[in-house]
């Protein structure tokens, strides 16, 4: 049941990205180019999404389980650290280089764009590298302990 809800949510999310124009990297870069001919559209996407999201999260914060009975798993971390800022800066540089963030890249992949496939493959390699180093950091070397 949660898988079906996820499928529907993914579809609606993807449709939102196409309708808003955010599945198009040129349009995203138009927003990031403050010094050029600026296209403020992305700010309006965020405003529309947050207006609806704010209501949903207010409801969600008052509940222990979801409407399908799933456990509410909202992040509880509050500390602002180097990881958060450095990671976000790296992401922002990558975002500015190609105009793709993860969602629009997956949607463009669904449009059959070969360039989106290259980006998504590199992104998965990046995510995999992160997992690899995190796991090595957590598990001490076999004979060191």
């Amino acid at each position, binding site marked *: 049941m*949660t898988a079906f809800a996820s499928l529907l949510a993914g579809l609606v999310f993807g449709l939102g990205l*196409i309708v808003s124009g955010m599945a198009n990297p040129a349009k995203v870069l138009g927003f990031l180019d403050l010094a050029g001919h600026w296209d403020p559209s992305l700010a309006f996407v965020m405003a529309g999404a947050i207006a609806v999201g704010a209501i949903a999260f207010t409801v969600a914060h008052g509940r222990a389980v979801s409407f399908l009975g799933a456990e509410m*798993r909202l992040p509880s971390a509050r500390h602002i650290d180097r990881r958060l800022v450095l990671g976000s800066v790296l992401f922002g540089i990558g975002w500015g*280089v*190609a*105009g793709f*963030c993860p969602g629009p890249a997956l949607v463009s992949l669904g*449009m059959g764009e070969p360039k989106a496939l290259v980006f998504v493959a590199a992104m998965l390699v990046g995510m995999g590298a992160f997992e690899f180093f995190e796991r090595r950091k957590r598990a001490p070397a076999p004979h060191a302990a």
Partner: protein
Amino acid sequence: MSIDWNHFTPLAAMAGGVLIGIAAAMFVLLNGRIAGISGVLGGLLRPVRGDSAWRMAFVLGLVGAPLVYLLFAALPRPQIDAGYGALILAGLLVGVGTRYGSGCTSGHGVCGLSRLSPRSLVATAAFMGAGFVTVFVTRHLLGI
């Protein structure tokens, strides 16, 4: 700065944004989770038993969205100007950065700001700031 009136599409942007908000709302109210695309994807690379089906389903929904859109209207074609080298570099940075920083435009930007998370506010300011600076450097200093 000058506004690019030819490309500025406030109504479509707002409508699409509302759809994205509805998707995030469905995700948290039905599944009890944050619709953070990098987190959902990253979790697939660290498989935990019984934790992969909903992740795959969400990704499938995103990838399948263009097909559903096609039922109603012709698909707008994305304009991807970056070359293959730039795409690989950008993909690596986005992959590592979103996992290290615990989120991307959807998790921190949409969901985090919706729930007034100070962490997400800092993250969103950091990636937007880095994005602005990167485009300024590539387009106006390097002229790429």
